[in-house]
């Protein structure tokens, strides 16, 4: 599964995108956030306030209870500040 990070999530994880093989215990977007947060200090910092993080699956907004089955691309980013 391709995972993408934007803005300060990209900076804190040190990664703009990566392809990950997820363990079977990671079933939802929320599980994925917890699993990523446990990877290293940078990821822990990036995901330390999960409530402020927005999630997109296959480029559409989803919540933390979204089931990842069939997902090609997950993205994590802060609240958007366009316009």
């Amino acid at each position, binding site marked *: 599964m391709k995972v993408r990070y934007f803005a300060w999530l990209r900076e804190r994880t040190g990664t703009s995108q990566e392809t990950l093989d997820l363990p079977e215990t990671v079933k939802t977007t929320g599980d994925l956030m917890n699993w990523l947060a446990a990877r290293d200090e940078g990821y822990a910092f990036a995901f330390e306030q999960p409530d402020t993080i927005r999630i997109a699956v296959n480029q559409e907004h989803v919540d933390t209870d979204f089931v990842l089955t069939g997902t090609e691309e997950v993205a994590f980013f802060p609240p958007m*500040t*366009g316009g």
Partner: protein
Amino acid sequence: MKHMAAMTNTIEYTVRVQEEDFNVSKETELLTQDRKDIGAIVTFTGLCRDEGGTLEALELEHYPGMAEAQISRFAQQAVERWPLTGLTVIHRFGKIPPGENIVLVIATSPHRRAAFEAADFLMDFLKTQAPFWKKEHLKNASEGSWVEAKTIDDKDAERWNKNAPA
């Protein structure tokens, strides 16, 4: 990226996400040329402010693909909700110095209220729902800082759920 709306009653609209600048009068001309059924043109141009001379530049990061898809989703909602004759939305990314353009919305319609509301609606959703992030580079700071989302922008976007347009 040019979209043809699926429903026969709604119009074609233009959505572009690009690094280069845009020209408001050229984009307006594309929506108005050779037609005489337009009564109202509303343009909204968003620019980079210098914040009292402290700002060196804004850096706009975006999520390619999703940015176009999200803007198109709201453009589609706008053409279904208001009787528009034309709609163009352009959002830039990359490093933008003060005084330069960031975003453009042009809505044309036979009626002024439709043109105003559609442009206003799109700007509210671009602010809160389109995957762009602004980083401020100040003149006297070595590192940039991410602009925080504003509650007022969410409230502006919520207006369109409560109030049906005229």
